[in-house]
Each structure stands twice: as structure tokens, then as C-alpha cells.
């Protein structure tokens, strides 16, 4: 670990305790949504579109309804019409099609039956008459002159335009004078890059159980990144008031952004309402791949100019991102993620497109990996042309506090330089490149976000504590909440039980996304603990019969200071809670906030690869990642985030891709042919945690989940270039694609 400045000494923060939910997860007891079973529960299945784009002429459910075991069938007609200007419109239509199916796999109807086999058979028996419409399957088709509309309800975002369009968003970012910048540049590199959709690849398919009672209220158990969002979105799609729905978070088997949107819950509720029984609805793996949101495809043309002494002066280009079948702002985010180097002159056009592939969804540092592929490849080429060390070139141009991001906003306190220095002094960087291998280097950036969180901390009678939040734990956040509470209260981390509560038992909390849980929810926990400490000081004052300003909180106990200190031993939390009844009742505190000041995180990755020049196969020999965590609350899970992000990025770089046939059907909708990295594909992933504390968080947390996926694509592309002399500009860098480039050499 690299400490970059003196920081407080913590007793709990920065340690590696066993996570509180760990035992259930190693013994098979942890309950994910698909593991839940209710009395009288039905199973459900969805009928999906076999066409990429078609008008629904009619749906005949009579045959399905007559089949054995069938208790309810729903179609789009069972859901309220939603105005296209409504924020929930696109997600509502994505949950179940209305007039048109917008991609192959789009849900059209759903069936609940006594058994899953019955439900599936009946779902297959729903008769849908389609009138096929022209399907748009790529960015190029979407932007072609005279292209048919992929989705008649899309409007170009944030422009006020009212006409339907295949342009989801159009944005522009500028500073300085790009023409003059290139005119003065000594070196200019320019390339076009393409990427294809990739999936988050969580191992748990989406699942939920819904139980709608006769009182018109529904309980939902769901695996999601945000159960409050499940509640509000489900209510909006059903046209219900929020208080009719209670959502209990089940354990979540991976999300990575893919479980920030909903697909099943409104359907399950409506089926349960119609059948009068609980309904379990779970996707198959094929459904997950065909019908949930991948990361956008992209096409990026970029040009970078530099001076002979290594100043990156000018960047210009156009970035297209496909949003799949609905509008979105992925292109704007992609352009904004160009934020690592000073570039006095910059001009970026960001254009989002709409097509007839599944509606794209967030995926870990959304839109940034595609942009980093382009920027970091070209920066590597400039280093190569100038004969400069790639880290030195980046150090020369790296942003520091106050430097502008692509959108102009100045960076807050950041640790990019420190991250670069950390990897420069790593053992890996200072070891020779293995014989026959190539070494690649690249960096990544992600903003991180704050948003709304709530936490309640209850002290129990015996001095133990319960920390209740509304942030689903997708990667160890319960442990980080407990660690921060332990540090605040001075209470052993295992005397604290962290709970993720349902929507009726804790205050509103936004989705666990954007690396915000430990940052924002953590702040709410800290604030609640601090309020509790004030209360405990008051109770201690009552017990000792002193004025509260004579009580200090030191080392997990109320210490009486000043003249009254003599003979008054400190009161521990257990001492105080034992007398809570006599001093005013239970000790509890709640804090809610809308967090500002999320701290951006930078990462730098280094890889040694070998390329089989006769087959195009890339083997990663060694991989190292350095990343600024701000402060690592639970370093083992920070490392885990860095390693997991790296592995996902490696998969994206090398072999993952959606393959559509000419009609828009996904041909590889299985884990056999959607090739995520398996254990034998990867080396150990060495981690260097850099800690440049975020001044906007009480413990300096930045959030570490997102950034790790940004550098791997260019890191491997640069390593392949070093090994073979071939610059890869199209993903995936799979054996056939690499061999093709080598053959062209």
C-alpha cells in the first residue's frame, strides 16, 4: 500500500475483518431471490419477441390460458399507457412491449402457472401476430441518411426536439483552439476504434418473487442494486402509489450496473395480482443475454497532437455510442470521461444512437472503457513515436487538482500523479519484459457519484450495535459500513451487525452504483454514529451527575473530564446501554443525506502478454493494477474490486462480444459462447492501493468499484502492439481478429 500523506491512525478502518454476511455465503444459507419460496407460489415465464423490430398486430392468449396449471397471463395491455415524456416510459416499455417490439428478446407476454414447466409451455403457446419492420442493428445503420426509425418514441435528449430520431443525444465539448493546436503539433496520431456490446455477466440471473395481497398492496423480494428504485419504478410502471409496494432486498449475485434497471418486478406483481398468489419470476441465462442491457457498442474517431517534448496539446474527435433500443446519454458520459490529461485544446462530438438491439444499461464506469481504449492507445503511440517512457509521458500531462475535465469542471483533489508514481515504482514495472512478450500500460478515470443515502444505528441493551442501511451489498459494503461505525463508536467490528433493510424499515436510499455505497451511505452511517455519541455523552452526564460538556468520547467510552473526573471511571457503550431505560430510553440515531463531493478515482494498469502469431491467441503473463482508493476501508475488498474490474476489462478486451445474426438475433446467448474469462485464462492480479484521501468524506473514501474496468482494454491493446507491432483498434481482440491484423502486417 502506498501512503501518500500522514493520515490519522485508525483502529478498525483499514483492517480486514471477516465480512458479516460471509458465513451464510460459504455455507449455502444466503438467500438470493431465486432461492426464496412462498406458500402457494406460482412460477412464471415470459414470451419474447423473435423479431428485432416488428409491430404487434395481435396477441392471442386463449390457448395459453387453457393450458394445465396456468393461473394468469399478462400482456402490455395489462399495464397503463405511459406518456413518452415521462421519465419511466422507456423502462416501462422495455419491461413489456406495447405497440412494437424493439429488439429480439423483447418481452411481449408472461404466464404464471403451478410449475415452471407449465409456465414455459404456456408462454410458448401465446400467439403473437407480428408485422415485421426494418431493423437497425448498428451505429452505421442508425446514422445513415434516410435510415428508418428504430423506435418511434425516441427523441434526442436534452435538445427540446419533439420529432422522433435515431439520435439519442448530441453533445459537444470544446476548449482552446483545436486547429491551431494541431498546426503547432510535432506529432499527430489518428485512428478509428470500434467496440461491440458486452454484458456485465453477473452469475445470478435476474429474479424476483412478488406477492400481491387482496388489500392491493404488493411485497417484492428482489435481487437488485437498489430496492428503493425497484419500488419507485415498479410503482410508476404499474401506475400505483409508492406506498402500495414494499421491496425486501434479497442477496444479489452480482450487478456491475446491470441490476440498476428493472425487467421483471412489474410483471411479477401484475401476475400475482391476477392470480391471487405469490409469483416467482426468474430469467434463464439465455434471457439475461438476449433481453437485459449490455454496455453500448461504440465507434470513436480520435486524433491527438503533441509536441516533441511530450506535451499533449490537442485532442479532437467524434464518439458514437449505441444505446440500443431507447434513448440514453452514454455518448455524453463517454466524452466526459476523457479527463486524465490537460489537453489545452479539445473538441469532442458525442453522439448517441438508437437501434434494434437490447436497451443498453450501465456497466461499471459506464462509457469510460470505450473512450479510454481510444485515448490511451493514441497516447501510447505518441510515447512510442517520441521514444518516451509511457508513464513519463503521462506524468508530464496528468491532471492535478484544478485542471479541467473534458466538460470544463475543474478536478477536485485527486491522486492521478500518485497512482502513476506507484506503478512506476512497482516490482512489475522494474522487472524486465519476459522474452518474446510485450508490455502494455494504460490508465483510467471515473467520476464516482454521491446521491441519497440513509442509515439508522441502534445500540442494543448489551452494548452491541445494529447498523441499518438501504444499500444492497454487492461487494462487501456491509463490512465497510461496520468498520466505519466501529471506528466512530470505538466498538469492535464484530459487535456491530450491518443490515440491509427493506423499503419500509430504513430511509430512502439510492441505488448502489457509481461506487457510492461506501462513500455516501458510509457518510450517513458516520453521521448517525456521531449523533449517537452525542446522545451517549448526555446519558453519561446523567449517570455521573455532571454537565454534558464535561464528558468526552475517547476510545469507545464516555470519559468525564475536568474536576469531576476523579473517581468517575469511563463509561463504556455497554455501561451506558445497560442504563438506557433509566436515562431516557433506547439509544438510536438516524442520518440521511444527499452526498456531494464524490472523489474521482484513477487507476494505472500494466500487463505483459505473449501473442501466438500463428493463432492470434493472447496470453497474459503478468498483470498489475494501481488505483487511488482515497482511503481503503476494508483493503481486501478494495483489492477485490480492483481485481474484479481488471478481469472484467480483460474479458471485454479479449473475447467478450454480442454476435447478432442478420435478423438481429443474438447467436451466442450462453456462457459457452459468450466467453467471459475463466480461472485458467488469468494470472494473479497484483494490486497497489494508493491512498489520497477524499477531503469530502470523513474517512477520505473515494469509491473503488468503477475505475478498475477502464484501463484493461488499452493496456492489453498496447501490450499486443509491443509484442507484435500490430495496433488493435476493433474489439474484441480475439484470436481471429488478432490473427487477421497480423496477417495484414
Amino acid at each position: 500500500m502506498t501512503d501518500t500523506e500522514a493520515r490519522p491512525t485508525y483502529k478498525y478502518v483499514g483492517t480486514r475483518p471477516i465480512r458479516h454476511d460471509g458465513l451464510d455465503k460459504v455455507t449455502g444459507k444466503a438467500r438470493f431471490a431465486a432461492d426464496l419460496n412462498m406458500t402457494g407460489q406460482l412460477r412464471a415465464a415470459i414470451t419474447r419477441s423473435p423479431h428485432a423490430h416488428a409491430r404487434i398486430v395481435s396477441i392471442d392468449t386463449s390457448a395459453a390460458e387453457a393450458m394445465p396449471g396456468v393461473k394468469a397471463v399478462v400482456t402490455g395491455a395489462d399495464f397503463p399507457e405511459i406518456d413518452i415524456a415521462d421519465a419511466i416510459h422507456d423502462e416501462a416499455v422495455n419491461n413489456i412491449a406495447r405497440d412494437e417490439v424493439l429488439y429480439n428478446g423483447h418481452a411481449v407476454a408472461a404466464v404464471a402457472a403451478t410449475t415452471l414447466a407449465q409456465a414455459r409451455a404456456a408462454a410458448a403457446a401465446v400467439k403473437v401476430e407480428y408485422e415485421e419492420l426494418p431493423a437497425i442493428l448498428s451505429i452505421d445503420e442508425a446514422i445513415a441518411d434516410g435510415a428508418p426509425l428504430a423506435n418511434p418514441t425516441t427523441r434526442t435528449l436534452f435538445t427540446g426536439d419533439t420529432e422522433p430520431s435515431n439520435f439519442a443525444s448530441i453533445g459537444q465539448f470544446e476548449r482552446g483552439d483545436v486547429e491551431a493546436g494541431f498546426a503547432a503539433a510535432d506529432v499527430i496520431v489518428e485512428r478509428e476504434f470500434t467496440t461491440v456490446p458486452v454484458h456485465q455477466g453477473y452469475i445470478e440471473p435476474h429474479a424476483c418473487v412478488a406477492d400481491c395481497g387482496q388489500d392491493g398492496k404488493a411485497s417484492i423480494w428482489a435481487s437488485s442494486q437498489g430496492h428503493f428504485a425497484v419500488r419507485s419504478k415498479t410503482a410508476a410502471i404499474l401506475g400505483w402509489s409508492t406506498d402500495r409496494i414494499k421491496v425486501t432486498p434479497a442477496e444479489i449475485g452480482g450487478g456491475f450496473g446491470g441490476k440498476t434497471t428493472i425487467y421483471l418486478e412489474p410483471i411479477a406483481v401484475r401476475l400475482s395480482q391476477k392470480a391471487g398468489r405469490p409469483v416467482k419470476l426468474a430469467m434463464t441465462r439465455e434471457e439475461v443475454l438476449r433481453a437485459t442491457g449490455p454496455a453500448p457498442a461504440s465507434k470513436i474517431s480520435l486524433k491527438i497532437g503533441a509536441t516533441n517534448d511530450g506535451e499533449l496539446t490537442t485532442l479532437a474527435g467524434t464518439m458514437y455510442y449505441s444505446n440500443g433500443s431507447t434513448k440514453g446519454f452514454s455518448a455524453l458520459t463517454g466524452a466526459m470521461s476523457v479527463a486524465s490529461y490537460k489537453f489545452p485544446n479539445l473538441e469532442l462530438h458525442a453522439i448517441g444512437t438508437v437501434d434494434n438491439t437490447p436497451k443498453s444499461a450501465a456497466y461499471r464506469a459506464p462509457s469510460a472503457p470505450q473512450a479510454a481504449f481510444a485515448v490511451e492507445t493514441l497516447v501510447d503511440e505518441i510515447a512510442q513515436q517520441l521514444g518516451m517512457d509511457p508513464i513519463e509521458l503521462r506524468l508530464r500531462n496528468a491532471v492535478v487538482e484544478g485542471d479541467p475535465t473534458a466538460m470544463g469542471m475543474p478536478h477536485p483533489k485527486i491522486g492521478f500523479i500518485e497512482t502513476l508514481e506507484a506503478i512506476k515504482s512497482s516490482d512489475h514495472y522494474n522487472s524486465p519484459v519476459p522474452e518474446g512478450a510485450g508490455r502494455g500500460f494504460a490508465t483510467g478515470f471515473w467520476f464516482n457519484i454521491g446521491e441519497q443515502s440513509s442509515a439508522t444505528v441502534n445500540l442494543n441493551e448489551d452494548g452491541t450495535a445494529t447498523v441499518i442501511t438501504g444499500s444492497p451489498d454487492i461487494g462487501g459494503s456491509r463490512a465497510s459500513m461496520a468498520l466505519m461505525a466501529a471506528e466512530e463508536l470505538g466498538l469492535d467490528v464484530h459487535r456491530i451487525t450491518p443490515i440491509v433493510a427493506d423499503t419500509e424499515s430504513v430511509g430512502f436510499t439510492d441505488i448502489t452504483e457509481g461506487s457510492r455505497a461506501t462513500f455516501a451511505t458510509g457518510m450517513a452511517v458516520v453521521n448517525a454514529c456521531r449523533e449517537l455519541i452525542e446522545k451517549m455523552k448526555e446519558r453519561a452526564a446523567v449517570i455521573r451527575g455532571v454537565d454534558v460538556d464535561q464528558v468526552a468520547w475517547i476510545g469507545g467510552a464516555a470519559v468525564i473530564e475536568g474536576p469531576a473526573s476523579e473517581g468517575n471511571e469511563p463509561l463504556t457503550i455497554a455501561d451506558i446501554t445497560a442504563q438506557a431505560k433509566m436515562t431516557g430510553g433506547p439509544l438510536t440515531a438516524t442520518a440521511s443525506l444527499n452526498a456531494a463531493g464524490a472523489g474521482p478515482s484513477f487507476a494505472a494498469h500494466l500487463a505483459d502478454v505473449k501473442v501466438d502469431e500463428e493463432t492470434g491467441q493472447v496470453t497474459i503473463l503478468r498483470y498489475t493494477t494501481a488505483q487511488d482508493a482515497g482511503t481503503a476501508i476494508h483493503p481486501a475488498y478494495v483489492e477485490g474490486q480492483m481485481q474484479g474490474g481488471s478481469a472484467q476489462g480483460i474479458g471485454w478486451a479479449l473475447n467478450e462480444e454480442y454476435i447478432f445474426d442478420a435478423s438481429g438475433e443474438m447467436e451466442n446467448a450462453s456462457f459457452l459462447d459468450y466467453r467471459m474469462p475463466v480461472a485458467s485464462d488469468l494470472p494473479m492480479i497484483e494490486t497497489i492501493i494508493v491512498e489520497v484521501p477524499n477531503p469530502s468524506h470523513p474517512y477520505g473514501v473515494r469509491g473503488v468499484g468503477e475505475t478498475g474496468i477502464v484501463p484493461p482494454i488499452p493496456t492489453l491493446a498496447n501490450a499486443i502492439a509491443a509484442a507484435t507491432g500490430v495496433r488493435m483498434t476493433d474489439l474484441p481482440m480475439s484470436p481471429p481478429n488478432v490473427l487477421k491484423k497480423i496477417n495484414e502486417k
Partner: protein
Amino acid sequence: MAIVHLQADHRRFTGGEEVLEVDGATIGAVIAELERRFPGLGPRLTEGASVAIDGELLPRGSIYEKVGPTTDIHFIAPITGG
């Protein structure tokens, strides 16, 4: 007077002006003043932008955030997470 920095997208409403001095005690008031001076800009800044003041990214919808006389305000494209 807050100092507002506009992205290229938003500059079409201001005749290309990038940095503006704008009256207003809160972010919401600044947006209202910008709408008054440049009709059509206001909605672009409320629905389609995140706000940073003095380099700190604010949560979405922070229209009541106080603005000081030398506050630097950046309206940027929305950010979501994964």
C-alpha cells in the same frame, strides 16, 4: 454574481458565450436568471445536466444549493454509475 461556465452544447443559447456572470442566491435562481436572459437554456440545465460548484460535483437536483458571489458553477452532462 456567480460565475457560470457553459459547455459547448449550451453555448448556442448564449451566442457562443462560455463564461457568464449571473445573479442568483441559489443554483435554481441562477438557472432561472439564465432562462430569462437566454430563453430555452433553463430546461437544458435542469433536465440534462449535473452541477458542480467550485469543482465539487453536487447531487442531481440540487437547485437550492446556495451560491456565493465568487462561486464557480459548471453545468455538465449527467453522470450515472455502474
